[in-house]
């Protein structure tokens, strides 16, 4: 069927999810009041805004992830051809990973991986 199947799958997913939600909407007669619309906080009245500050750790981990994810993308084409090229490819990737790993160790030394 070729790549057209991806479009078919997307449409099928939209039909499936949209159909379910539409049927539910058709069957249910909901009512709306002030208490119902509040954010759920285990029954007590909700307090303050959810837009609080949160731990910077999440951000740091996302940054380090970015480095390694790009590395992973570079590794995919390498992994396909390494069998044919042989030892030279292995040496090159060891150098590549070594440089990246130094960056990772630096981040670790700076305390980026420590959870406050």
């Amino acid at each position, binding site marked *: 069927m070729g790549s057209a199947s991806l479009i078919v799958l997307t449409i099928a997913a939209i039909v499936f999810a949209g159909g379910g939600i539409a049927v539910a909407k058709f069957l*249910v007669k909901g009512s709306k009041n002030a208490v119902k619309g509040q954010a759920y906080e285990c029954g007590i009245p909700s307090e303050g805004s959810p837009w609080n500050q949160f731990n910077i750790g999440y951000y740091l981990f996302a940054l380090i992830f970015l480095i390694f994810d790009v590395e992973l993308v570079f590794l*995919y084409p390498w992994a396909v051809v*390494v069998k044919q090229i042989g030892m030279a490819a292995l040496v090159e990737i060891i150098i590549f990973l070594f440089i990246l790993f130094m960056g990772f160790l630096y981040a670790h030394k700076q305390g980026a991986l420590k959870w406050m």
Partner: protein
Amino acid sequence: MFSLESITNSIQTWLNNTFNPTIALLFECVIVGVLVISLFAVLGLVLVLMERKVSAYMQIRLGPNRVGPGGSLQTVADTLKLVVKEGLTPDGADKFLFNLAPFLVIIISMLVLAPIPFAKNFQILDINIGVLYVSAVSSVSVIGILMAGWASNNKYSLLGAMRSGAQIVSYELSAGLAVLSIVVLTGSLQLSDIIASQQNGWWIFKGHIPVIISFVIFIIAVTAETNRAPFDLAEAESELTAGFHTEYSGMKFALFFLAEYVNIFIVCSIGAILFLGGWMPLHIGNWNGFNHVMDYIPSSVWFIGKVFFLIFVIMWFRWTFPRLRIDQLLNLEWKYLLPISMLNLLLTTLITIMGWHF
């Protein structure tokens, strides 16, 4: 012999002989769509019931046993109940993103089903970059989770989404590196090629210790990626009520729930394809009699059996290990799994180049 391959082939020839090519293609599209939707529904029903039954037997109780024979229709009843529940949108929520998130999650998990071979020559799209496609598309699902948590206007949801984001992106790395070790061994990203390379033995047997290490890393990483216990911090009931889908109710909640179980199926089938030979039957050396008996079991049964075995293992984890704290979780990934999987990848490469595997 009876096989899914011959059924699809006969349907295709019949369609092409009866209609002109455009209409035949259209019919094929409709058939694929209907099949995928029913696969989704059946997977959801079966896996939720299996989860509840497995949990029950691990805790020495019976589990659902009222609706249908042995409780087999319990999930149908639950789904019907969810359909008639009101779908609330909280005040202050970003309505567009709030409604878009379940669609996104479902679309992603349906798209990842495309390159998976369910039986011999039975897959929707035999794409030549299968492994890359799966890891690329499935990593988009974290956006759906972040979107749901961000748009809900709820502290629990936001915190759960943030945790989930940090966790999924972290464990994606070691899952990717574990998958790469198989790509190095086979030299191909196409899933059908990877299965064909396991004709004379599955990689977990052929590949010595490095492949076993990457299999273990893969299982740990995908357990974390699908937000399963012991890594279910994103929806830790005792801390965050339900995590990123706290504010979802009715059908939208059901869609999140369904996507979660389908994702478990997907990662387990990827594990089965890469390490356990996909639909390849178990062959032992030159035991010809045994090998012939194994060949008589249909390839789809082999595939489903392996996948459900891995799913059972992941459900088993839930009742064996206590939940990790977020700092322990990130330490496990960044300080242990990532360096180990990198070294393991290099070791696998060395073994491949020197030809030390079977």
